[in-house]
């Protein structure tokens, strides 16, 4: 692995993986504690429509995907805020529509020769330097926003009525938060692809949640876990010549099941105590 770092693509992959981990830790924690995994999945798949738009109109990938994901995310947020009980149906529809738009636009793109698989399963080993800058900028922006609004986000996640009483504009913060989720997803799609983005956004925070006493602890712990998953998955992909997105997810999933088994044993033991 160390000698592999002499290659620029490998260095870029490690940097991209670290940015993605930071995002997973901070934004993913909010997604998990707010039970918004399905909505995050909806945004991720709808983002494919943005990929189609980017190629069809010849605009930069990040710009097209980000714009489309943000619009889809805002529509979903409006639906969730207005009709929480039926929001899942609507998210499911946007999920499918986004993908369909993406496929059709790619069909219609003349001379289209992009590897579709790289968007579905990621291409961390092929992240160009220009995308690294996009990722750096967006990561810093979303983490700064999450840190600045940490208390407000924590309050609306834990007890939104009380937050409203304290004068927090709950709906506005909610839109901001889902917007951050959309930005994060666009970044992470670059690393593991849109099919696997949900696993990377949720597995590290889910494991971390059980061992954390506060949200801040959960964020730090899940960032570290995500870095471990990313780098070991990358190492596996490099060593055995496998698809990096899939190896990263399988490492994360393995850790997830190990933590579940560990908890099962540990909790049983604790239950036996008087």
């Amino acid at each position, binding site marked *: 692995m160390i000698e592999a770092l002499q290659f620029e693509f490998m260095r870029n992959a490690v940097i991209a993986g670290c940015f993605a981990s930071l995002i997973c830790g901070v934004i993913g924690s909010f997604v998990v504690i707010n039970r918004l995994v399905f909505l995050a999945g909806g945004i991720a798949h709808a983002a494919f429509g943005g990929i189609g738009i980017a190629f069809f109109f010849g605009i930069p990938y990040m710009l097209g995907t980000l714009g489309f994901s943000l619009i889809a995310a805002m529509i979903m947020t409006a639906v969730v805020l207005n009709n929480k009980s039926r929001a899942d149906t609507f998210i499911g529809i946007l999920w499918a529509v986004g993908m369909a738009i993406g496929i059709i636009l790619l069909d219609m793109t003349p001379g289209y020769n992009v590897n579709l698989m790289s968007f579905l399963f990621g291409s961390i080993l092929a992240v160009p330097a220009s995308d690294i800058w996009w990722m750096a900028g967006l990561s810093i922006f979303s983490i700064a926003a999450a840190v600045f609004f940490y*208390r407000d986000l924590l309050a609306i996640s834990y*007890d939104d009525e009380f937050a409203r009483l304290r004068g927090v504009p709950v709906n506005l913060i909610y839109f901001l938060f889902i917007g951050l989720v959309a930005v994060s997803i666009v970044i992470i799609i670059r690393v593991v692809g849109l099919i696997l983005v949900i696993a990377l956004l949720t597995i590290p925070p889910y494991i971390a949640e059980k061992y954390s006493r506060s*949200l801040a602890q959960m964020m730090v712990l899940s960032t570290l876990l995500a870095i471990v998953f990313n780098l070991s998955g990358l190492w596996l992909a490099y060593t055995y010549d496998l698809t990096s997105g899939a190896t990263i997810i399988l490492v994360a999933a393995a850790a997830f099941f190990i933590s579940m088994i560990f908890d099962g044993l540990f909790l049983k033991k604790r239950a036996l105590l008087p």
Partner: protein
Amino acid sequence: MITNSIIEVNHVSFSYNGALVLSDVSLSIREKEFVAFIGPNGGGKTTLVKLLLGLLKPDCGTIKIMGQPPAKVVHRIGYVPQDVSINKSFPISVMDVVLMGRLQFHRWSRLSKKDRMAAKNALENLEMLEFQNRKIDELSGGQRERVFIARALATAPDILFLDEPTANIDSQGRTDLYALLKELNKTKTIFVVSHDTMVLSSYVTSVACVNKNVHYHDAAEITEEMLDMGYHCPVELIAHGIPHRILKTHGDD
């Protein structure tokens, strides 16, 4: 009348999904009262509290708190919601819960030393400071209740609303809690939604029976018999036509 009324409710009605929950409610409550909201489940107690907090908007009628609409004075109101264990497994420390009480959105520096001191003081008042770094779900029901009262007190409120604060705690915890509320009542107006009318009788200064309509009993007029009936079956208390004094819409002069 010596003291002014701190809360004025005039002909307020509220319906939820087309079903009338509260009908033509008028209420006037003086400062430093200790008011108990009693009534059957589904009678609208929590709805009335949320209307007073400004979390819900009445279909018609007006609510004035300290002479202003609830949204304007909401920062002077402390609120302890019902069933604080809904989000039990949430990764949040006791300190972070109490700091929510110091949240102010329109401020660039988000939390100051003063806010942390206020949160610490609130925890200390409730003898919960030693638990400040614990995760909220590691606490017992009674301890959690104290944390949520500390959060409400951290806002330095003039009015305190507690929605069924004794639901999750044992009888010793209840006695302690009401002793604490009595102490707080020296400086604050307190509203408690509760079924514990037995405990209420010794601390409460007035009772409001909430069952679509609101019947307000001033302390002086409560007989033990009425309270007894109120505890067993508040619906009957209203339905059987025992004379109630329904307060006039404006303070009686």
